[in-house]
């Protein structure tokens, strides 16, 4: 994906083009004052530098009322113009879009979870059809996060204890970055996701296929666990290929010998893995922070078993 640079106006969403227009408007005014002030600063510095061997004689100028008025009034008017232009686009951004599909966004350290109207949850990946308005209803399970799609020029903090909203209208097919923009702890910089904007027909096909998969149901526990691993966002902190992330890798975890941060060591059996899901900060692996949220209550017993079955397959 190319850089979402503001100067190459983004057509990715309904408001992105307007935001870029405001940016360029401010840039023009700022550019004018930049050239004016820096130009005079440098010109005066060179023009009126002290000449060698010349006895200085500078005029006794202490001020000029007319000039003071000029450089109070003109900037004030331009500032009001900048404010007003920014305001109109901000209002547009905050105005609810009619017939918007509602998607529930739950942020937690360090995962985005998107819940579709059909009840399905997907972690860190938001698929939207192009030209279809969407309302994101966002809440956090723990601390403050920030939902940020640079290409859309939109951002909104996600709070624990109260809902915040964002209206999106994707205008161009493509894959865009989602970042967490509000510092939320150790894995903050890895709390990223993708926003995939698809053509309407493809979106419908994807939706149908997913629903089909769900109905088919009869999965092995390991397959069920793999699906849970993806939908619960475990991969945000735990890799399955051995690479280090915020949390220990799960590659070969089952049956391995684990050294804890209190110096003890144990073998990672079913019981240890269950405890690590329900009381994750009781027995923390050496070299890691006690930051994992507890999944007690949010994962059912058979789901925990399924996850453990999946972990056994990660050789």
């Amino acid at each position, binding site marked *: 994906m190319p850089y979402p640079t503001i100067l190459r106006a983004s057509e990715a969403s309904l408001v992105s083009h307007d935001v870029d227009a405001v940016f360029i408007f401010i840039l023009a005014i700022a550019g004018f004052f930049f050239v004016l002030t820096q130009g005079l600063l440098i010109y005066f510095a060179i023009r*009126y530098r002290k000449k060698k061997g010349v006895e200085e004689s500078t005029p006794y100028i202490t001020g000029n009322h007319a000039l003071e008025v000029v450089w109070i009034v003109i900037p004030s008017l331009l500032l009001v113009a900048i404010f007003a232009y920014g305001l109109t686009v*901000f209002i547009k951004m905050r105005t609810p879009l009619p017939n918007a599909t509602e998607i529930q966004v739950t942020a937690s350290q360090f995962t985005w979870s998107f819940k579709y109207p059909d009840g399905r949850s997907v972690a860190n990946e938001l698929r939207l059809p192009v030209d279809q308005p969407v309302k994101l209803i966002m809440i956090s399970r723990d601390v403050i996060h920030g939902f940020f799609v640079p290409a859309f020029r939109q951002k909104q903090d996600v709070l624990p204890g109260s809902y915040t909203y964002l209206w999106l209208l994707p205008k161009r097919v493509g894959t865009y970055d989602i970042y967490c923009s509000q510092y939320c702890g150790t894995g903050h910089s890895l709390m990223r996701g993708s926003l995939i904007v698809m053509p309407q027909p493809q979106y419908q096909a994807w939706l149908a296929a997913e629903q089909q998969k769900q109905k088919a149901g009869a999965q092995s526990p390991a397959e069920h666990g793999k699906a849970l691993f993806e939908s619960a966002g475990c991969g945000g902190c735990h890799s399955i290929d051995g690479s280090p992330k915020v949390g220990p890798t799960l590659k070969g975890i089952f049956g391995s010998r684990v050294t804890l941060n209190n110096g003890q060591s144990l073998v990672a059996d079913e019981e240890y893995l269950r405890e690590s899901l329900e009381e994750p900060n009781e027995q923390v692996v050496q070299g890691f922070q006690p930051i994992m949220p507890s999944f007690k209550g949010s994962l059912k017993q058979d789901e925990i078993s399924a996850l453990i079955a999946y972990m056994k397959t990660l050789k």
Partner: protein
Amino acid sequence: MADHATSSLPGDRGYLSEQGWRSWALTMDHKRIGVMYIWTTLGFFVVAGILALLLRLKLLVPGPALFSDHTYNVLFTMHGAMIIFLFIIPAIPSALGNFFIPLLIGCRDVAFPRLNLFSYWIFVAGILVTVGTLVAPMDTGWTFYTPYSTRTSAAVTSLSFGLFLIGMSSILTGLNFIVTIHTMRAPGMSWYRMPLFIWAMYATSVIQVLSTPVIGITFLLLAAERVFGIGIFDPAKGGDPLLFQHFFWFYSHPVVYVMILPAMGIVSEVVPVFARKPIFGYKAIAYSALAIAFIGFLVWGHHMFVSGMSTISGVIFSFLTFFVAVPTGIKIFNWIATLYKGSISFDSPMLYALSFIFLFIIGGLTGLFLGSLATDVHVHDTYFLVAHFHYTMMGGTVMGLFAGLHYWFPKMTGRMFNETWAKNAWWLVVAGFNITFFPMFILGMQGMPRRYAEYPAKYQPLNVVATVGSWFLALGVIIMFANFVRSLRNGEPAPDNPWRGLTLEWQTSSPPPEENFHEIPTVTDWPYGYGNRNEASRDH
């Protein structure tokens, strides 16, 4: 200005004559207290600067490198907390303010010398608690947003206590300065004959006294929530996390003017001296300092446009924010007009003052993008913001501090520094600064969020540029400090008035005697009467 030649005997060390640690630790001399503040604050500038270099070093690569992400978070928290609370807030007001307010208004000490010493020592006590806490990993960011800060295992409670003490010191110093400026000016020094540094320090002190109690109370509430479990900010306990942000920025926005106004005061002193011209628009500069202090109290919400605050609040705060730009612009225009038809020499204090103007213009103009609602939504919490506040705080305040340190070094120490090395350092500092921070504007426009220990690979090239820039910047600062340290012992003896300034500190010896002036001067004119009064005269 009054004519009071008080030439000192060669080898007379003035206020520096007395030796031994007691002569410093128990001193009530505002100059010695000022010097202690300088050493303390510059010490933390160095420490926090080293942390910043480590942060930049890690950001050379997008993925895991050098140290863990958690360590990165701890380091940026320490960098921010130290540079804000232990360096940039006290650096000019408490250090140069203490040393020069009495000298510039022509009196023997501040109004409450004993309180002044007390302020210094509670500052040190606050530092000990704060640093002791920071060393135990603190990973909240210097903004301590709840509920992260009420839940993290880091020692937020004791940190609050340390910052509470530092805030106390700040309030008492501000109070001391207000009383000093009101009551102790030399005979004949009316308000409009005060140097502009004094006007700036006056506005600064008012902000310190009025805003610091709010952050003190906020830290107490934070501690109450953590220790007693009282639900104030954490929604899980029935609190409101946005309430914390309102309290925090109600202090932390005005306090950016505590950081910048004194630096603007220094620029207002340095520019006329080296341009050999009266300051242009004295009253406009003086009143704009007060205007900034006043409006600065009404704009804290511009840190919260995307926080979940209501749309209408965002609109009001955005509108008010643009009016801080007006008095700031007034200062810039007046400084530039002061140069007109001057006879400008480019000694190092002037170079730093001019680079303040140059860099602060960039910092100020980029603030427009952050003040405007539509564009702030995009660039808020990105590297654009990081670049903006480093241009205002480092390009502004720190350049102003460097201007002041060079300008007043001869007066404070009785020695001259090496001008050639000072200029070499200046080139490196200014070039390094721009190479480090300008790319961050572009990174922010491209959407790179701040406080990212790891980042998508597409942002790497500009991050590499920024990191390389930080090495030039560091080298410049090292040369500058080495020049100062070397000159403390080996510098040429300084004349009483090396820059031919008209303010009162230049009418006494370098370094000044303990009582500042052998005889209190009588002031008969404003301090900017440079130039030929027969030419193009205009009433000020």
